[in-house]
């Protein structure tokens, strides 16, 4: 169940819990699924040298990122026995406590979803040209680097 054209993975603003709930609900007609695994990235109010992060402002090289997300999708369907997969990433200013990344994989069997989800998330972190600017409460900022 992989599609051949890159979709747009980006959402303007935070990913709401209702959006996630609705996405789960849509899978209840797929009665060959036995296991779902969901990763959510949430913006942390990190304390960096005495200043607290109040939000992250996300920008991306969108065309390249959507291609990379598509390649990651295709590679994941090759490697693991998945029924479906969804990826959403926020753009713009996401406040501490809000969700900026939503990755959702489903399979008949649980062993597959654990391996697949970790693979997808690590690939996104490594290969998607997305840039997070940590905004502090005093409105200064620092560019984030994935570790």
């Amino acid at each position, binding site marked *: 169940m992989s599609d051949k054209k890159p979709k747009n993975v980006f959402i303007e603003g935070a990913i709401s819990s209702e959006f996630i709930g609705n996405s789960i609900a849509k899978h209840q007609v797929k009665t060959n699924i036995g296991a779902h695994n969901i990763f959510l990235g949430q913006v942390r109010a990190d304390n960096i040298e005495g200043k607290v992060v109040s939000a992250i402002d996300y920008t991306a090289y969108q065309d390249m*990122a959507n291609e990379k997300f598509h390649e990651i999708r295709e590679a994941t369907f090759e490697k693991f026995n998945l029924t479906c997969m969804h990826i959403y*990433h926020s753009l713009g200013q996401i406040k501490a406590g809000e969700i900026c990344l939503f990755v959702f994989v489903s399979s008949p069997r649980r062993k597959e979803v654990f391996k697949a989800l970790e693979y997808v998330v690590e690939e*996104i972190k490594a290969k998607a040209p997305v840039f997070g600017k940590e905004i502090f409460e005093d409105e200064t900022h620092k560019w984030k*680097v*994935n570790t």
Partner: protein
Amino acid sequence: MQLNIKYFGLIAEITTCTEETLELSNATIADLKNVLIGKYPELNTKDFQIAQNKEIVSNETLISGEELALLPPFSGG
């Protein structure tokens, strides 16, 4: 040859623009880097990769004239 170059994140802060065109012929990525560091000396102190046609390329790659982009370290998710 006219090159269309995109800048992102920290790199766009240094160049103070998100896109510009440059004239450069028979050049490699290394040549482009030299030109850009000449124009924006602060780039020399920063980590970045270059993508051509949405693929990361290395210093030896010949520039084909299509879409180029300077990408600071990724921090998605």
